[in-house]
């Protein structure tokens, strides 16, 4: 999928899955039936933006506002790569 294509998609977590901050682990985790994915900071930040309404372009804008020190284009690149991977893993879906 090219990047213009992906930017208009609206992703959400797979139904029944839950993103949660774990104080004991000091990180976000993705919880699903009898399992858990331990997320690094950027994965947690990206998944935290999925609300079932925002498209990928909006999501990138919001992250850029949150992390203004990031070099140009770096966030968009990370987000695109992560979302494609997360969809392949079955963590997220889009319509």
């Amino acid at each position, binding site marked *: 999928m090219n990047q213009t294509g992906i930017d208009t998609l609206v992703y959400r977590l797979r139904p029944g899955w*839950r993103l*949660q901050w774990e104080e004991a*682990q000091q990180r976000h985790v993705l919880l699903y039936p*009898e399992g*858990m994915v*331990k*997320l*690094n900071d950027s*994965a947690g930040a990206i998944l935290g933006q999925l609300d079932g309404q925002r498209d990928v372009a909006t999501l990138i804008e919001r992250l850029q506002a949150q992390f203004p020190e990031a070099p140009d284009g770096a966030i968009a690149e990370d987000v695109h790569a992560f979302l494609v991977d997360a969809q392949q893993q*079955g963590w997220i879906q889009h319509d």
Partner: protein
Amino acid sequence: MTDHTDTATANGSPGAPLWLLAELTYRCPLQCSYCSNPLDFAAVKQELTTDEWIDVLTQARAMGAVQLGFSGGEPLVRKDLETLVAEARRLGFYTNLITSALGLDEARIHALRDAGLDHIQISLQASDPDVAAAVAGSAKAHAKKLAMARAVKEAGYPMVLNVVLHRHNIDQLDTIIALCDDLGADAVELANCQLYGWAHLNRAGLLPSQAQLEAAEATTNRWRQRLAERDRDMRLLFVVPDYYADRPKACMGGWGSIFMTVAPDGAVLPCHSARMLPMDFPNAREHPLQEIWYDSAAFNRYRGDDWMQEPCRSCDERHKDVGGCRCQAYMLTGDPAATDPVCDLSPDHHLIEAARREAADDSRSAQALTLRNARESQVFCRT
């Protein structure tokens, strides 16, 4: 990006018990001959109260536990299940109900949903009602399970079906997977019977042949391909029976590593089978979970690798499979610190080969196996 590994290191301090299995009761309306509950379960009378369970959940969550399984026996037997689910969810657990579906109805499915239950895993015994009836010791259960599986799916839960495989149902795997597909499962655990508790008692009558196993794996792979072609997202997890492996499983990811079971009477265990071992396990009624997990002799007994004997002690793979399963080592050799005889480097591996031969010579029907019930259990009760 992701890290699926557990937090315990081989010889360092243990990480948190991320997984809590709450065995609410040993009572169960079914009598499955492959049940992993202890043989003397009928000796356990004093189940933890609602308040005691809430205390257990609160302590475990504070220690970092995040995945919670409500299991048993049949957890739906407990009338306070909805209360416990609500409390667990409020504490931040991901809540899994591991059930036979007996005791479930649409009202209860919705009550559990309202309480915040995240997931219901239903067990099926077979695709054929007669085989299912023989294995579970109940003629009515199968139809009920199918109806409830449909209702659970309809209520919007993610649905994982669990089918314990053994020689009496493994040849029906094609129709079993077709049934799970028809029921709308999101994932199916095709779990070859683990030979503990009642399953160990019935071992010779449950263990499939190598040929049955190979056919089942081929069937599973055919289905995976077929599902992918249809773009149908139903994951098939095929759990190989370790009696046909040449290396043991890394049981529970290591003793006291990520997994903690609290039994119906409050006994705290590193896995649901461990109370068969010749050692004392602390009780949540008497000690804080924090102390039990980090400081008790029982939980420290098989952590790290200092306890290992040869051939594990000098083996390069000792941190990969942690020497296998302590319960299996004890059941087969009488020594819980022995190398799991599943390993073909174990001096006791001939016991596994003998068990396979014994199974090959066993011609009992599913009906002829010992059913797991309180009457049979009395035979094994020490008091």
